[in-house]
């Protein structure tokens, strides 16, 4: 059961299908699977539904998939950094399902954990709860949200091993562990593949059972808001 692949293209071989649902890790441009996104763009696959907190920027991250109109629908909490997204959305060419950020994270976690539905107070009394079931617990109203699984999850980790064990770095972790659990197939790109046994066993944020394919690649790691203080 060889999990290690040599490139994004090789790792995606036989996996992509028009109309599939993809869960993508990352927050803004931080911790995004940038090599997999680029390879998905080059593959020409279409009609994608993508669950990702954000939609990248016009020329980087998931924004790349908008250039050739490969995305049918986004499930996101915030897409404000992407002009192309707005144009396509306002032109009716792109569907958006807004999920509160915590609800999106929990939906992916629940999907991966075999939980088809859970109740949250988030969004009760707002547009987000319209058309959804609500229920009272101890006198307070909660809305039923569904677990979310994806045909494919693409995630970016710091280091990984041949067993698929992954460890993340700082806030580049974000949605990646949740996406990894929600994919029927999960592909991880890492900065470095290390020998099995060299990751700290108490710090394997994503155990290998969740990862079917893994490859190492370079990462540009573009910064969206470079803010500094005087030295």
């Amino acid at each position, binding site marked *: 059961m060889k999990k290690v692949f040599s490139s994004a293209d090789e790792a995606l071989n036989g996996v992509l299908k028009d109309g599939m649902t993809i869960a993508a890790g990352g*927050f*803004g*441009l*931080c*911790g995004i699977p940038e090599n997999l996104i680029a390879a998905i763009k080059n593959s020409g696959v279409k009609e994608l539904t993508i669950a990702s*907190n954000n939609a990248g920027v016009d020329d980087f991250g998931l924004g790349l998939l908008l250039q050739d109109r490969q995305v049918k629908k986004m499930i*996101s*909490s*915030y*897409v*404000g*950094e992407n002009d192309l997204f*707005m144009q396509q*959305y*306002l032109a009716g060419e792109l569907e*958006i399902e*807004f999920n*509160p*950020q*915590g*609800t*999106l*994270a*929990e939906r*992916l*976690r629940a999907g991966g954990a075999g939980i088809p539905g859970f109740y*949250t*107070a*988030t*969004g*009760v*009394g*707002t*547009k*987000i709860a319209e058309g959804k079931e609500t229920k009272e617990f101890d006198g307070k109203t909660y809305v039923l949200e569904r677990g979310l699984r994806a045909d494919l999850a693409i995630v970016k980790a*710091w280091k990984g091993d041949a067993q698929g064990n992954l460890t*993340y*770095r*700082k*806030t*580049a*972790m*974000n*949605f*990646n*562990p*949740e996406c990894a659990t929600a994919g029927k197939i999960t592909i991880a790109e890492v900065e470095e593949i290390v020998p099995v046994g060299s990751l700290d066993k108490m710090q394997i*944020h994503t155990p290998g059972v969740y990862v079917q394919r893994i490859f190492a690649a370079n990462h540009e*790691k*573009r*910064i*969206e*808001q*470079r*803010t*500094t*203080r*005087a*030295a």
Partner: protein
Amino acid sequence: MPWDRNDMAARAAQELEDGFYVNLGIGIPTLVSNYVPEDYDITLQSENGMLGMGPFPTEEEIDADLINAGKQTVTELDRTSYFSSSQSFAMIRGGHINLSILGAMEVSETGDLANWMIPGRLVKGMGGAMDLVAGVQRIVIIMDHANKAGESKLLKKCSLPLTGQGVVDRIITNLGVFDVVEGGLKVIELAPEVTMEEVRNKTEATIVGS
């Protein structure tokens, strides 16, 4: 003399208690961290997966893997811990964060909050705001008392789509501090030289009590 942005942030810092875990929204709320009393042990949560957010980095310290929920580069502290998004919102939704200070477009006299969407305009999304207002123990809003057209942003009923229903505890505007209480908004404090009459004139929401 009404408060300016920094006055409002300084006033909001009085909402902090020693030992608090706090989530600050984008914009004026971010300024609150400049006014934390020195002897207070305050921990800032950033909902993208960080507890114990430090100041902006120097040019040399910039790390692309270390940003806040506004996607700005930040730094870590000795106390910092990192975790995934579902764990971050478990913390928020589960009521473990003491206080969140956020901006707003509108607040109603029953504590409804609208701060994520203007129909007909570009819709960017709610990000983590709906989870914060539903889960955090206490919600304090900082915003101008009136919009650019001079209309009250403290309303009987919000006209914009809600971020949360009955979620706001306190509002700090350039004119004063207001609590959401039974029957409307109660004036807690007025900015210097601001009178109750001025507040009543400039507020659509019901002002209760003295």
